[in-house]
């Protein structure tokens, strides 16, 4: 689409050249050729103008709503038909139980990772720290957002280690984890994946994990997925739009 606009500018330039040539031309043959070229140029220019003034705005209006009737800015993230989370049995980094009740009344962002992760996890937490700093005051009012760093490496990530790791990035971020059977209850409900390289869980090992951020609404429903790569601006804008759009609580 952007290319078309540039083409129009080029066309204008070509037309100027053609008109100059027409005025300079002496022979009949070359002036006929030139006139033809001018006509072609004018038609092309007019169709360009028509496209940009009449057709394009119409197309944009149609695109403002996606196929599901969602505002376009939230369509790639928001899940209209959410699912209530159930059977959640996690432990937070203060050694307190974390059940689905603690999703209620808050917008929850969930990121799955592990503290032995040197690149993606710090980067995502830094992105979310920047997102937190950018939230307008209205976004911090109830139902306020909470960020959960879900460790998928419970064998190594004790509450103490998680607390030190998560609060380093933001004092309000909360680390949670659980035994694998309870972790799996959460991950299967939100479509998150994790696994150990070569099935290894002894000594040095790394954990593969979903790179996306899961959004849970204040009613405790799985409500959205922010896909990698994460962009601070996009998350802030999309989340504000979701709060506006989401029925029930803002």
């Amino acid at each position, binding site marked *: 689409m952007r290319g078309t606009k540039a083409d129009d500018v080029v066309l204008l330039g070509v037309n100027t050249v053609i008109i100059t040539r027409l005025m300079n031309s002496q022979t009949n043959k070359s002036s006929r050729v030139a006139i033809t070229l001018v006509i072609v140029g004018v038609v092309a220019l007019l169709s360009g103008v028509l496209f940009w003034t009449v057709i394009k705005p119409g197309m944009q209006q149609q695109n403002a709503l996606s196929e599901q009737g969602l505002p376009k800015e939230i369509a790639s993230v928001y899940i209209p038909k959410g699912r209530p989370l159930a059977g959640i049995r996690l432990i937070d980094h203060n050694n307190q139980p974390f059940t689905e009740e603690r999703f209620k009344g808050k917008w929850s962002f969930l990121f799955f990772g592990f*503290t*032995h*992760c*040197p*690149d*993606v996890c*710090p*980067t995502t937490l*830094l*992105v979310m*720290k*920047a*997102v937190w*700093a*950018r939230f307008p005051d209205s976004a911090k009012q109830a139902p306020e957002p909470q960020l959960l760093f879900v460790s998928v490496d419970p064998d190594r990530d004790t509450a*103490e*280690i998680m607390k*030190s*790791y998560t609060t*380093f*990035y933001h004092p309000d971020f909360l680390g949670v984890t659980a035994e694998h059977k309870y972790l799996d209850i959460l991950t299967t409900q939100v479509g998150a*994946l994790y696994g150990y*390289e070569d099935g290894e869980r002894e000594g*040095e090992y*790394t954990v*593969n*994990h*979903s*790179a*996306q951020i899961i959004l849970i609404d204040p009613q405790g429903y799985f409500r959205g997925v922010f*896909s*990698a*790569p994460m962009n*601070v*601006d996009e998350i*802030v804008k999309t989340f504000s739009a979701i709060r506006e759009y989401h029925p029930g609580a803002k």
Partner: protein
Amino acid sequence: MSMKKSSVVVTAVIIAMIIAVISMYKLMSVQAKDSLEITGAWVPLSPPKAKIMAAYLKIKNPTGKMIEVTNISSPDFANVMIHETIVKDGVSRMEMRSKLLLEPGEEVVLQRGGLHLMLMYKKRVLTTKDTVILNFTTSAGPISISAPVKVAAIDGE
């Protein structure tokens, strides 16, 4: 006549000096371009209890021959590995590279979300007052650099 003679001498001296400077410069640059150039190295500050850290940097091969990085070590860590973060189908995983091969003129950038050095099991707490020594073993000889520990941030803070 003597004016002409002296100007010839002056010209000759100037030309000789230019040649000397050029050859010295060339000699120096040839010397500097015998091995890899590692620049912009830094280590993001990480939580005090995090055992594993990362290092980001640029490696350039300014020479005319292929150079291989075969090993990296640091006195502050038990082990240093070359890793690449790969996000495929929404899942992030890390792939280890046993070595890094640089073609003549090639530059490899180790940055967030891609190739990076994984610094395993730190031996002391590192703050922003510290620098991490990284020792590279390459086919063109050893190189040591120091990477400052810096607070990491993403735009918007």
